[in-house]
């Protein structure tokens, strides 16, 4: 290897500045070469023309070729006559190729301003929240229209699809719903007994567990679980169908994606959530009863007797009536987000995340509205 050949040297011959390039002008050496290229004109020369002598260049790739071109251009911009000499003919095409590129300076990256960006981001978020509301209402509207149409012609309902989704969102969710609600029931009872014992009011634990589970916790835990489990799946399914133009394929075959894909999912969810809420609430009561017996020391007969006094049918109904509304909002958010997915994998992930986050948020907001409503009508 001719290690002696310097990458770039300058010498003045008469009125000509001769730049001798040598050695490997390849990407691996780019940082050295670029520094040399940048600095070579910084010294003061009294030259009128520049000769770039590349006869000693051993290897050349596109990065090296570009740097030679940059040498030439820098000289040309300073109104010097610049020429490349001694070029190995096999590199000529490469050099010609880079000579026609980068004619305009590259686009500057947009500058970031922290405060400006924060305000802009806030504004965007508000606007998006508005659009979300609009989109959810629009989806609700189109589902109602399709549901109405299907109600008059029941044979057009995709019954198989409904059963399939019911199996996925309801039947297969039973074990995890049972387990989680059982544990929540246990924890509520344990905490209740632990703290109520100080006032000698252990028996009120039954009231607390009964009312809390049936009115609030049962339906909330189930809704959050379903939003995470099935809402995300709906978004991901619909999103990837949209990405692969499956929705467009349906549409051109004369099917309405809302009828074929979304309605069965919504119906399955609206059936599933009350069922799961019921099952979950029972599991939580069972867990509460078990802990009361083993930890609090009152036998099952006492627990059941006490429960009968503490709760009414209304307590049970208040919890259950919320379930279909929760299902509706989870399904709506999931479908809206699914249809918003665009081409990239990142977009799919983003919308699946926001589907779950928005669904859980709205579930809790709606629960709050129900609490206000029931308080107002005195249930």
């Amino acid at each position: 290897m001719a290690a002696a050949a310097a990458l770039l040297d300058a010498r003045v011959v008469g009125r000509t500045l001769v730049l001798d390039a040598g050695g490997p002008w390849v990407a691996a050496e780019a940082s050295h070469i670029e520094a040399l290229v940048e600095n070579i004109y910084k010294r003061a020369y009294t030259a009128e023309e520049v000769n770039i002598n590349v006869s000693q260049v051993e290897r050349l790739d596109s990065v090296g070729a570009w740097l030679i071109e940059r040498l030439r251009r820098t000289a040309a911009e300073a109104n010097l006559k610049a020429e490349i000499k001694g070029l190995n003919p096999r590199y000529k095409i490469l050099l010609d190729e880079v000579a026609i590129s980068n004619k305009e300076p590259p686009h500057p990256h947009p500058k970031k301003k922290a405060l400006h960006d924060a305000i802009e981001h806030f504004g965007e978020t508000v606007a998006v929240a508005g659009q979300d509301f609009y989109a959810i209402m629009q989806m609700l509207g189109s589902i109602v229209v399709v549901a109405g149409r299907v109600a008059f012609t029941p044979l057009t309902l995709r019954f198989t699809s409904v059963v399939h989704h019911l199996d996925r969102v309801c039947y297969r969710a039973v074990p995890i719903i049972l387990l989680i609600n059982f544990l929540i029931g246990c924890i509520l009872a344990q905490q209740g007994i632990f703290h109520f014992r100080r006032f000698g009011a252990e028996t009120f634990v039954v009231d607390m567990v009964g009312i809390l589970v049936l009115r609030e916790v049962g339906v909330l835990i189930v809704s959050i679980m379903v939003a995470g489990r099935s809402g995300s799946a709906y978004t991901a399914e619909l999103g990837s169908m949209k990405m692969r133009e499956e929705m467009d394929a349906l549409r051109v075959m004369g099917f309405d994606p809302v009828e074929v894909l979304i309605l069965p999912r919504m119906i399955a969810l609206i059936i599933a959530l009350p069922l799961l809420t019921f099952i979950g609430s029972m599991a939580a009561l069972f867990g509460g009863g078990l802990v009361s017996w083993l930890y609090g020391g009152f036998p099952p007969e006492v627990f059941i007797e006490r429960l009968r006094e503490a709760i009414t049918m209304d307590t049970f109904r208040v919890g259950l009536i919320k379930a279909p509304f929760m299902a509706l909002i989870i399904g709506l958010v999931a479908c809206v987000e699914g249809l918003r997915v665009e081409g990239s994998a990142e977009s799919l992930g983003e919308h699946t995340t926001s589907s779950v986050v928005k669904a859980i948020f709205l579930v809790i907001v709606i629960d709050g509205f129900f609490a206000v409503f029931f308080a107002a009508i005195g249930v």
Partner: protein
Amino acid sequence: MNALKPNGAKPNGSGVGVENVISARDLVVGFHNVPVLKGLNLDVKRGEILGFVGGSGGGKSVLTRTIIGLIPKWSGSIHVFGEDLDALSEEDRSALERRWGVLFQGGALFSSLTVRQNVQFPMRENLELSPRLLEEISLAKLEMVGLHRDVLDKMPSELSGGMVKRVALARSLALDPEILFLDEPTSGLDPISAGDFDELIMALQQTLGLTVFMVTHDLDSLHTACDRVAALADGKIIATGPIEDMLQSDHPWLRAYFHGKRAKTRTGKTGRKRV
């Protein structure tokens, strides 16, 4: 042929002067106990454009993917730049991998990165370039494949099929590879774009001294762009040679392929045209 010295060649000169940049011997590859390639032998010469044809599902992509190491082989050997791929250490292997570029059938652009970031990705990871140089080189590569600077900040999902292929080609050229693997580069392109793409490949092959391994079904590409054609049937290479030899062959599969209904309109006299 303008054989460049390999950019990343080690001082001991490994790979320099080797005529066959890829050679596969007795290659057996399969899935679930069913062999797809059954003792395949293939040589790719330095500086040529090799067109690789074969029936759908016949194992063309399998061979490409086996050479670039995405599918494990059952037996046989593959030498690239004269080096046995099995004998290489992890480090040498990744050094070797930087000497080839792959254009996947669907482009395989990173969907969460912009065009600019896609092209810059291999350079950013493997080379030490200043931000300014990185910008200039990536733009030069994009302009080399015939794209305008306006696409720089677009996302892959906003591009047309032909543009995706061009960006993917620019990305596969980012590290100045010596071998370019193209998996059906012209499929899904209209004849004009496909013709442009062929010319582009030929121009790049001459400019950069590439060796091109091109899987294709496009008879026009085979006629205009390829120096040699290799045909795969029944898991083996049944013939290699210039397109003219293929057309004159009596092998039933080759006759069916090159003289079938789809091929009848063509005279076979187009010959090879260099830009």
